[in-house]
């Protein structure tokens, strides 16, 4: 079955809108987006694996996770701070990238709002991401510099040489 997947960008407002339907009820989909033991199973693009370091799903709480490639433990982590939660309906996070001591490795961040509605094949999830800068997009596209694909690595090479050139 082909699931609705809609991905649009507004460059002027630095906002990405994603709409996706899932063949499961809203309660189950909500759990899949908010419980570490389920998130660990699907968020990392294979062959990477996701490892949750901390999960405290409440307003003011946070989810800290890293990507594992070839059994190498992560040295960079993704941090999602829960800003607002409306149970079973929506939640908003501030997303950034940090080192193992939870220090920000970049000022780039994004604010993400996930909204869940019954409909379509079961549940329709709408994701809105407002990025602080182009760098935030670069980091999202590379999972904080650990993307496994050749294309990703090539982009990173260019990225690093650009940084080197401007210093």
């Amino acid at each position, binding site marked *: 079955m082909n699931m609705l997947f809609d991905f649009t960008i507004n*460059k002027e407002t630095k906002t990405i809108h994603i709409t996706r339907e*899932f063949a499961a009820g809203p309660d*189950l989909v909500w759990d899949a987006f908010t419980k570490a033991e389920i998130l660990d199973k699907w968020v990392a*693009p294979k062959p990477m694996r996701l490892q949750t370091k901390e999960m405290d799903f409440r307003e003011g709480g946070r989810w800290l996770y890293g990507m594992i490639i070839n059994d190498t433990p992560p040295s960079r982590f993704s941090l999602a701070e829960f800003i607002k939660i409306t149970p079973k309906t929506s939640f908003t996070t501030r997303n950034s990238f940090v080192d193992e001591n939870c220090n920000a490795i970049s000022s780039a961040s994004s604010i993400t709002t996930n909204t869940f509605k019954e409909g379509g094949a079961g549940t329709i999830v709408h994701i809105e991401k407002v990025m602080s800068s182009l760098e935030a*997009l670069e980091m*999202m596209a590379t999972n904080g510099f650990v993307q496994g694909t050749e294309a990703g690595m090539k982009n990173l090479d260019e990225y690093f040489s650009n940084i080197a050139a401007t210093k």
Partner: protein
Amino acid sequence: MRRDIFQAIADPTRRAILVLIAVQAMTPNAIATHFNITRQSISKHLRILNECDLLAQKQDGREIYYELKIDKMNEVDAWLDQFRKIMEQQFLQLDDVLNTLKNNNK
């Protein structure tokens, strides 16, 4: 300071300048004739675009021509495309996980 491409495209005048110089290399004076603003503010916009690394400069006699560095504009699209692919893959993985969870609950 390295500016952000998003900063370049946030302003309507700068977007219009990018459209103009994407078609052909132009001198600042030629660019200015398309806008009802001072030559000085055109220079300011060009400076910002240059700091975003979007402009290539060509000297011809005493005239400087500006044209768009297309690669740089494509960079945003490349990152977006890559992010889109990651999201697509994630959601296919989530489809499988949801399927398994539904079957376990039966």
